[in-house]
């Protein structure tokens, strides 16, 4: 009798196009019945060459390019870049500008976390929660439009300050909106902590221990849900966080419930700090003069994006354009936890685990692979990359 060593594997592919993913990524889950036995991820479908593109643009133009790294957390990208360039140039934005930056950043956090809550509820199959959170997200988007003039890609920053001041009328409108939001946030906290059917899908699922979170280098709310007390806003305060500090939220259990709860608790904290800033807004200018050429040097800037720690490395050679900018978005370290956690869980939990880190695929896809074997050279210009891309796809289509 012959028995085969290899059992036939049943692999469920998720992505690049799949209803659970709002952006392209590819995951392969080997399942035994409903239980996942192995997992792998392939990323890089949404690589856009932003880091390379920025080397061809001026310091000012890049502000708007980096704002488009991520659609949900556009402000924090621009803030991080602007703060880095200001540090490099030795210019300090006025306190009022910094405070406005913090207001927009925290409003953006509310917007992002509410969006996440809706997505997570949808992945769990709780569409009513999804619809209601997104309905209330409209409120915060309208508030952002009142302050900055746009619902997404707010463009609140310029190098050396912010574009628009917050007038007392705008401030009153924001405070009114916050009253409504705070009430709803409390209600959602009640729902996710008490709804028996929703808890069945979140409690005890995808448990990330503190040890595991530290080993994988998980950042942001995902790490704080596992008891890792790490928040850039608290650890190394930037913009106006020294004057208007936030309290760090930490949950211990590390499962999906903790990740949901921590994000909602952060919303309450954001509302509180926005209120505090609006009531004690520093007076003064909202912009300072920035030189067009930034003096030579390099700088590393860390901020806390809604998804976790985001950092920018900026290097200048003294010209009008940056020599090199490197971005690390929070999704890439968190992605490791998806593959690590998936094994042993049910197939039905996978979308929840994936959504639990609040992934942003387009943000993280930034690697460029240069194939030396094919005679590539080690310095590629924007034109080279563009030509390479066009030729690559032309070849693909002909096959």
């Amino acid at each position, binding site marked *: 009798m012959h028995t085969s060593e290899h059992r036939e594997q049943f692999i469920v592919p998720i992505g690049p196009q799949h209803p659970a993913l709002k952006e392209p990524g590819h995951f392969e889950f080997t399942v035994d019945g409903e239980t996942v036995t192995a997992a792998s991820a392939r990323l890089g479908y949404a690589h856009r060459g932003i880091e390379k593109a920025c080397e061809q*643009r*001026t310091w*000012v*133009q*890049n*502000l*708007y*390019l980096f*704002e488009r790294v991520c659609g949900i957390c556009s402000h924090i990208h621009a803030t991080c870049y602007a703060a880095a360039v200001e540090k490099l140039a030795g210019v300090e934005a006025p306190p009022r500008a910094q405070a406005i930056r913090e207001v927009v950043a925290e409003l953006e956090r509310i917007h992002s976390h509410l969006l996440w809550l809706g997505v997570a509820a949808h992945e769990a199959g709780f569409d*009513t*929660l999804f619809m*209601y959170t997104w*309905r209330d997200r*409209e409120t915060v988007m309208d508030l952002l*439009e*009142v*302050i*900055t*003039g*746009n619902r997404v*890609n707010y*463009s609140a920053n*310029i190098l050396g300050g912010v*574009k*628009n001041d917050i007038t007392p009328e*705008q401030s009153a409108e924001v405070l009114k909106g916050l009253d409504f939001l705070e009430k709803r946030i409390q*209600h959602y906290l*009640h*729902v996710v902590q*008490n*709804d*028996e*059917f*929703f808890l069945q899908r979140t409690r005890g699922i995808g448990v990330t221990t503190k040890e595991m979170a530290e080993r994988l280098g998980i950042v942001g709310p995902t790490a704080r849900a596992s008891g890792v007390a790490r928040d850039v806003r608290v650890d190394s305060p930037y913009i106006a966080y020294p004057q208007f500090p936030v309290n760090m939220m930490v949950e211990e259990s590390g499962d999906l419930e903790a990740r949901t709860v921590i994000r909602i608790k952060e919303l309450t904290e954001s509302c509180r700090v926005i209120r505090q800033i609006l009531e004690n807004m520093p007076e003064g200018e909202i912009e300072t003069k920035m030189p067009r050429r930034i003096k030579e040097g390099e700088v590393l800037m860390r901020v806390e994006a809604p998804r976790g720690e985001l950092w920018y490395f900026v290097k200048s050679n003294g010209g009008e354009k940056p020599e090199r900018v490197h971005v690390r978005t929070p999704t890439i370290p968190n992605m490791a936890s998806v593959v690590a956690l998936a094994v042993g869980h049910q197939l039905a939990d996978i979308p929840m685990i994936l959504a639990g880190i609040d992934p942003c695929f387009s943000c993280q896809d930034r690697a460029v692979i240069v194939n030396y074997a094919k005679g590539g050279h080690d310095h590629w210009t924007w034109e080279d990359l563009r030509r390479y891309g066009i030729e690559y796809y032309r070849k693909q289509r002909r096959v």
Partner: protein
Amino acid sequence: MRIATMIGDISRSLFRKPVTRQYPFEKSATPKALRGRVEWDAAKCTGCNLCVRDCPAMALDLHILDRKNKQFVMRYHLDRCVFCAQCEESCRFDAIHLSDKKWELAALTQDPFDIFYGEENNVRTVVEKVLKGNAGQDAGKDSGAKAQAK
């Protein structure tokens, strides 16, 4: 430990109109800060070109016919514009601002996205110059471009 925690929400919604805004039929007021189409004031412009240099989307072309007599034509590529208002920030003479009224910019053809600001005869000169520059590529554009001249 309860089931159906959202019963309050759904029972309230039952007797309430849906919140969905039926956009083209009901419009909501836009905030003052809203960033719409770029408006350019020829009288205030000095032709310093700062807006053109700072535009991240290469949406502005300033054609200087005569700097002394302030004979400028601004070609505004609406289809490239990302409405970031950096031009408004960069302009030291307050010649550019983004309208908070003109934001419904959808159109069925491409012509309305190519806007020329300036005096009519100057615009004509520039349009001819532009067309000569890419002759054969979009020759059919001139009628539309002229129609848009302001």
